[in-house]
């Protein structure tokens, strides 16, 4: 530390620690996605498909434009207050839109679109749609268990330059081969709708919101079926 000026030596330890923290943040683990591969999928004739839940309806508007400014200026307490404020503003929007989507089921819409696309293809796969994940004994009746875990869905800002919202669905997909428990498909996907619309328009036009949500979720279901019908990954 002899190269540092005298007044810097006193802070050298803190300086190194503080410099290391942001640097090491870039070294976090990267999730290795696994795409389904043609040879693996071809060997599966009976698949259990599970869409266990509808997922959480959320609106990401105020939270999507949050910055670290409150944390930098007012510390953790400031960050917590700002975070709580942004979350409450988004919850207000969710509450305003929820009645339009009262009977909408992401689970049913997604599962219908997925099975419809699979059946419309030439692929001969026996698909059993289950409400809950099969236990170990039940799993053995299938070559593999495919789980679509819908995490969140709703409306979000597509980017910080955009003030209009877009429908989205976020899900985690896993396909496990029963014989060896090998993950043949392990991915996290977010699908966006095609249109961008202001919050006030969605608030005023419930049928439009409902239709756009339905289109987005159904499109996600069809695209997931295409990944099974035309796999693009490498064999395991």
């Amino acid at each position, binding site marked *: 530390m002899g190269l540092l000026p005298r*007044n*810097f030596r*006193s*802070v050298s*330890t*803190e*300086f190194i*620690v*503080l*410099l290391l923290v*942001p640097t090491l*943040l*870039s*070294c*976090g683990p*990267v999730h290795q996605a696994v795409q389904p591969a043609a040879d693996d999928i071809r060997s599966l004739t009976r698949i259990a498909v599970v869409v266990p839940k509808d997922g959480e309806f959320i609106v990401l508007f105020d939270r*999507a*434009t*949050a*910055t*670290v*400014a409150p*944390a*930098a200026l007012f510390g953790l307490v400031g*960050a917590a207050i700002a*975070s709580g404020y942004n979350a409450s503003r988004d919850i207000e929007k969710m509450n305003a839109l929820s009645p339009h989507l009262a009977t909408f089921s992401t689970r049913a819409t997604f599962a219908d679109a997925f099975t419809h696309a699979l059946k*419309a293809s030439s692929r001969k796969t026996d698909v059993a749609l289950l409400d809950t994940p099969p236990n170990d004994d039940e799993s053995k009746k299938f070559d593999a268990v495919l789980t679509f875990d819908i995490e969140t869905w709703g409306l979000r800002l*597509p*980017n*910080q*330059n955009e003030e209009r919202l877009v429908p989205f669905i976020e899900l985690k997909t896993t396909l496990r081969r029963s014989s060896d428990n090998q993950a043949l498909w392990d991915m996290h996907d*977010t*699908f*966006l709708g*095609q249109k961008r619309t202001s919050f006030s328009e969605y608030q005023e036009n419930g049928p439009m919101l409902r239709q756009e949500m339905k289109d987005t979720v159904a499109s996600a279901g069809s*695209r997931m079926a*295409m990944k099974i*019908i*035309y796999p*693009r990954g490498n064999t395991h």
Partner: protein
Amino acid sequence: LKFSTPALYIFLLSLTLGGCAFTQANLNVGYDEAKAAKGPLSEIPSRQLTIGEFKDVRPERDKIGYKRNGYGMKTADILTQKPVPEIVREAVTAELSKNGHATASKAPELVLAGEITTFWFDTQINFWSVEFMGTVAMDLNVTDGKTGAPLLARKYQGHFNEKSLGGLDATWERVMNAALALMIEEMSTDTKLLEVLRKVEKPNDT
């Protein structure tokens, strides 16, 4: 550990300047031709195609995103090494030629062209993590090679997001490449496009 004021300033400065926030990023975004997969497009007899122009109709055409500091302020542009229309056109061409179709035919049965509506990279800073988001979208128009009659107009979109503790240019490239690949995947498995390609009449058909 007791932090003194200079250390705090340095820490804040390092966050502000983190990732060379004030210098342009120039990403090498493109569709990996080696990864272009044979899919349903290859089940259709080889077609004589021309891949026409892909117009860039994005609101901001000179960049694909902004670098932002921790306060959300725009500090520099994020660019691509190749022009965006070239990236998209090359991706469409690669996918179709990998699946056995001629893409530079002088007597095409079909012409594929389009408009790029979105090609954007963005970050969202959360409390403990950063979310990197890439979105690529185009309107594809298919016209008859002889008459120029419109046969199909479709919208395709690829969106990829990755939540991690941090990341720089290599991560951003990966996110944009994944979004581009997802859009091409949507195009190449689109049953409407496959139908048009399947139905096309050969030029010497009567």
